[in-house]
């Protein structure tokens, strides 16, 4: 019988897990254990040498986390995944697996503020440099590549400006230079966009957002496509015996999941950003309804975007799903099911009006998160992107009078009502 190619909805519910071999439990058990017994000294040695697959210690692997990893790999149509303790850790592990002091990253300049800080400040301290480019012009990536460059980095939908990149153009540049393209797919989720289909090589996620879907846990995951030719000469640490792990040659030994094995055994193992199995359990619960939630998130977001665009207290709305967006064509190509549910808008009257708006909302939640089932609003200039000075904020797409909204699943008329009354309040001196 030929293997069936299951649809993404089926994968959301099933990928990565079979009913428990001992109990028959249908739901993935939470394996709340730090370690696993070895059958013998020889078995232990084989496990540590990676000659056999099995569980050693939960810092490196855990059966509940493994279900989450496998489900994410399946949803992204990738080969393998590694779960970690946060979205920030996903980026860190993804990058440190291939970067060392002296190396260089070319990144879109429109990024989540924390990511910008990680690259521009923390990585620089480790001797890894980043150049930030305007991703609206794909050739900017090519122009910034140097002999020290090891990867290109973008967000599939930029936080907070909700800008899009022409994936195929950027991944073509990456391929021409023998570099992997790393995409943060947090805003889109694999339900709305699968960057591997457009030539990306590694995907990272903050699972805290739509994957979790209910704002209960912090977590992250990285996934590899399995298609990148690590033997192209640019990545000796994928080819040579690993000083950090028993002399293993990761690409030779594990082939199309060699990168994630290196991420797991060299970086996750020694830096230690392990995901709690309980959080994985909650992410798996979230993934079971990802497809249903994302459709409704998108549907509500479209209504909210049009409402805001026509509101007299709103100066501008940036949502790629609007006809007026410069990214509307890219939405048709890369996001046929919609461009997620996060948008930003400018309130007439500047920062003070933004503060009045934020303080007037009744049930929309003022907090620094997104991708929750509840509708969330935040003023990035004073919160998520506060660490950046005004110039860096502008470069990252943050304007002083900008509100970011993550449209949730409440009654749409109620969302519009709360926005309307808070916008009216924002205009009263």
């Amino acid at each position, binding site marked *: 019988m030929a*293997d069936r190619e299951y649809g993404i909805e089926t994968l959301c519910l*099933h990928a990565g897990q079979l009913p428990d*071999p001992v109990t028959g439990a249908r739901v993935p058990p939470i394996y709340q254990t730090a370690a696993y017994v070895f059958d013998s000294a020889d078995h232990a040695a084989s496990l540590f040498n990676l000659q056999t*697959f*099995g569980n050693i210690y939960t810092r490196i692997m855990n059966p509940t986390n493994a279900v989450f990893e496998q489900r994410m*790999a399946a949803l992204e149509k*990738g080969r393998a995944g590694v*779960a970690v303790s946060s979205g920030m850790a996903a980026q860190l592990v993804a990058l440190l697996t291939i970067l060392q002091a002296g190396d260089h990253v070319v990144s879109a300049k429109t990024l989540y503020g924390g990511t910008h800080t990680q690259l521009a400040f923390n990585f620089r301290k480790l001797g890894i440099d980043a150049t930030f480019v305007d991703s609206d012009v794909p050739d900017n990536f090519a122009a910034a590549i140097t002999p020290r460059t090891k990867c290109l980095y973008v967000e599939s939908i930029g936080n907070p400006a909700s800008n899009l990149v022409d994936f195929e153009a950027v991944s073509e540049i990456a391929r021409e230079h023998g570099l992997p393209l790393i995409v943060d797919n947090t805003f889109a989720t694999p339900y709305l966009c699968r960057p591997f289909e457009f030539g990306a090589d590694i995907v990272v996620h903050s699972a805290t957002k739509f994957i979790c879907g209910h704002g209960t846990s912090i977590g992250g995951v990285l996934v590899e496509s399995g298609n990148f030719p690590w033997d192209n000469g640019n990545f000796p640490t994928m080819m040579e015996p690993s000083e950090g792990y028993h002399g293993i040659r990761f690409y030779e030994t594990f082939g199309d999941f060699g990168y*994630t094995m290196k991420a797991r055994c060299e970086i996750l193992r020694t830096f230690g950003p392990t995901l709690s199995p309980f959080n994985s359990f909650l992410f798996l619960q979230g993934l079971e309804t990802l497809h249903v939630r994302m459709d409704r998130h998108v549907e509500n977001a479209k209504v909210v975007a049009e409402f805001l665009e026509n509101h007299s207290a709103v100066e501008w709305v940036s949502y790629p799903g609007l006809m007026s967006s410069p990214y509307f064509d890219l939405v048709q190509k890369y996001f046929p099911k919609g461009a997620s549910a996060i948008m930003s808008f400018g309130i007439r009257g500047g920062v003070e009006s933004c503060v009045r708006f934020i303080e007037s909302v009744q049930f929309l939640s003022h907090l620094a998160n997104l991708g929750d089932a509840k509708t969330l609003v935040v003023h990035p200039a004073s919160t998520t992107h506060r660490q950046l000075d005004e110039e860096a904020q502008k470069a990252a797409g943050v304007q002083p009078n900008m509100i970011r909204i993550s449209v949730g699943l409440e009654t749409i008329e109620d969302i519009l009502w709360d926005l309307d009354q808070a916008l009216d309040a924002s205009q009263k001196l």
Partner: protein
Amino acid sequence: MIVDDIQSLRRILKENRTIAMVGLSERWYRPSNFAAKYLQEYGYRVIPVNPNYESILGEKCYPRLEDIADPIDVVDVFQRSEVVVPIAHSAIKCSAKVLWLQLGIFNQEAEELAAQAGMDVVVNRCMKIEHARLFGGLNFIGVDTKVISSTRSTWVS
């Protein structure tokens, strides 16, 4: 028959226990050695075929397939694609049931020869990885196994 689906691969891995590994290396960190050690741990007998060694992983090593007296179920090939045709001829002569070409190995002539002789032929897959994919191990390290089922898993650990 050239096979690549989960059901057939499961059957091959279940029904066959004796594997002649052509090109098995003695060095522990080589992929072939990893595969052999893994398969031994799961109860397969792995007979090394390599003119350069006396014995590998506790098994006597033979220079050629034809030198092996015991019946062989699977001929598992870790050699460059160009040299696979004579190996296929030998595999047929030895009445092996499966010709298994490891990752990155393709040879249409050899594949067709073996298939016409009634053998199952697996191409461009690693026997260790497929075992781990279909019987458990890869489930522990986040690799997409593509196994979807509501039947209790039969993981071996």
